[in-house]
């Protein structure tokens, strides 16, 4: 799959062969009541660490793209598989009509779901570790702008 534009941003600092890029607020963020919470890292910066093969320097405006389209696979790994485990755990007990004396059936089903969730989470953990072995970075800087005009585009 081809590279897709993630967002525009400003290079905040260079960290070796990578650059920390703070993402610019787009128009859809303007009226969002939760935008104040959009600060993921410890320093409160809304940004990503991206490969800097294009050679961007601090303060430059750049376009950040996904270096590989792993997002769907990772999402399936982290959400789809555990959710499937949770549902399987619940429905396996529900259809097998198992009940424990003194405990509500729903609690038993829920515990079954949690067991399924834990098992599949462990599985997805291993899978993610294997998948990310060769994934140093997920994002890369593909274009550099200076004063609003394009000055450099990464080839290849």
């Amino acid at each position, binding site marked *: 799959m081809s590279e897709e534009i993630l967002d525009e941003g400003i290079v905040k600092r260079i960290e070796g062969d990578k650059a920390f890029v703070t993402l610019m607020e787009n128009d859809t963020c303007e009226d969002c009541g939760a935008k104040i919470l959009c600060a993921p890292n410890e320093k409160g910066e809304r940004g990503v660490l991206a490969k800097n093969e294009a050679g961007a320097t601090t303060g430059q405006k750049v376009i950040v793209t996904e270096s590989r389209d792993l997002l769907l696979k990772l*999402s399936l790994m*982290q959400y789809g598989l555990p959710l499937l485990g949770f549902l399987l755990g619940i429905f396996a007990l529900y259809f097998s009509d198992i009940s424990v004396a003194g405990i509500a059936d729903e609690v038993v089903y829920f515990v079954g779901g949690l067991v399924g969730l834990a098992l599949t989470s462990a599985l997805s953990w291993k899978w993610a570790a294997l998948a990310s072995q060769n994934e140093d970075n*997920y994002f890369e800087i593909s274009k550099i702008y200076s004063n609003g005009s394009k000055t450099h585009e990464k080839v290849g």
Partner: protein
Amino acid sequence: MKLFLIFISAAIVNNFVLSYFLGICPFVGVSKKVSSAVSMGMAVTFVMTITAAVTWLIYHLILVPFNVVILEYVSFILVIASLVQLVEMFIRKISKPLYDTLGIYLPLITTNCAILGLALFAVLREYGFIESIVYGIGAGVGFTLALVIMAGIREELELANVPKHFQGAGITMIVAGSLALAFMGFAGLISI
């Protein structure tokens, strides 16, 4: 059959985003790309399903027996916030790429009224435990569907010649309104 109808009702007929207008913030904010939309949809479906199960247990096994139903909102909000925090910690620990991409949007799930709406609607409609879970999955699938359709259209709009004054938020709102109109065509198809 009832479970199937609950699922279809939550996913399409009474779509949380396009019929109830809940969860509009992530609907607009995370619908620029189809891949991000699917990921966000999966995250919301996961949280919704777990929330449906946990809130059902809390309501029927704690709040009702102890006659403290008045604490319904507080306890549900607490459950949702805790769940999202757990998911966020889990993702940060095991998958940095996913956290880098979705991490900035996870707080949107905490403040997503669709999740709280799901918990409250499930109680209001007096669903059983399994019905609540199916309702949660259906609502999550419906949310994902709305997000993906919107993202698909917005990706195409990147190539379209949109008049200057409609660009950005303007055309996004027009598309969202048109989608809502289309989904309103399903209204009344299933009443569950």
